[in-house]
């Protein structure tokens, strides 16, 4: 038996995921395809947001969805009704999508459609405010949803998610008159965690804020495709 050796490697634990995420991004870029990673807690309204968004986008852009879910294809089935390409990714016991899963999803998408004709790929992550924030998937932008029924304190309780997001959508704002909720406190907590994030208030019931969200997406797609 030899003496112990210390190998100083200073290696990121997530480097394999980061490496795959970079490969995914190169693929997206080669396809000229903007990729958004949509994240939130369960029930914040991701799938409903996508249903409305995909319909609105369809007049101008070609979209596809990778739909992450732990155990079912229920959300994917909802989105398939819109006649756009949807690939369900069932993660099993995993509480987030990782870059490998998205790579697999992209391969399945390539069998369904030529990605060159697409403008935007929306990836709906698994409902969770913790792990999805740490795992890059190759996205160009991260979008985090936060519904007002979750409470004003969530950006402080789950700071990594809201720090990492490029855009934060405050959802279900049609419920404001019925709740004891201080939206200014929420916005202040968002600014504390991430002063650089764009913030849009949105309601899938009244459709308020959807014009701003669509404008945000259109701007990103057009800038990306230049």
């Amino acid at each position, binding site marked *: 038996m030899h003496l112990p*050796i210390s190998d100083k*490697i*200073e290696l990121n634990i997530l480097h394999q995921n980061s490496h795959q995420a970079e490969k995914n991004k190169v693929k997206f870029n080669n396809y000229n395809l903007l990729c958004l990673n949509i994240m939130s807690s369960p029930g914040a309204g991701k799938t409903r947001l996508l249903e409305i968004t995909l319909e609105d986008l369809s007049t101008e852009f070609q979209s596809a969805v990778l739909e992450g879910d732990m155990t079912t294809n229920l959300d994917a089935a909802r989105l398939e009704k819109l006649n756009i390409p949807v690939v369900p990714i069932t993660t099993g016991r995993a509480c987030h999508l990782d870059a490998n899963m998205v790579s697999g999803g992209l391969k399945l998408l390539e069998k369904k459609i030529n990605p060159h004709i697409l403008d935007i790929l929306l990836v709906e992550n698994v409902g969770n405010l913790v792990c999805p924030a740490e795992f890059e998937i190759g996205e160009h932008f991260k979008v985090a949803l936060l519904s007002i029924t979750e409470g004003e304190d969530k950006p402080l309780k789950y*700071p990594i998610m809201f720090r990492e997001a490029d855009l934060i959508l405050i959802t279900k704002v049609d419920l404001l008159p019925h709740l004891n909720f201080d939206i200014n406190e929420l916005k202040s*907590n968002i600014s504390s965690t991430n002063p650089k994030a764009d913030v849009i208030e949105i309601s899938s019931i009244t459709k308020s804020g959807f014009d701003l969200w669509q404008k945000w997406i259109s701007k990103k797609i057009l800038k990306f495709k230049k």
Partner: protein
Amino acid sequence: MTKCLILSMEEWAEKKNKEKIIVEKINLKIGEFTCVEPISLINTFNAAVLGSWLDSSEITIETIPFEGKCSKCNRSYFPKKENGYKSPCCNLNLDEIISGRELKIASIDFKEK
């Protein structure tokens, strides 16, 4: 995260001839501003490697403090949730993060059989 750690160890061991080494310690640096709870990582790692080539290895974790930099006066500070992560010097929102996002294998202590 545990899976990523084990995969990183597998990758490292491939270059070392896994059959001829015993890993004694895996020394990690985990930032305070990450989604990793150190004790949970240790427990899940210990459970996951039972009976494997990493069974006898031990995880040590150096916690790296969460440190930010005030965008106005450039002073470094330790952001606190209770204070909304604001800089105590100028009461400004969290801007630059100096440290606390680390998720690293710093070093691996091993013996050759």
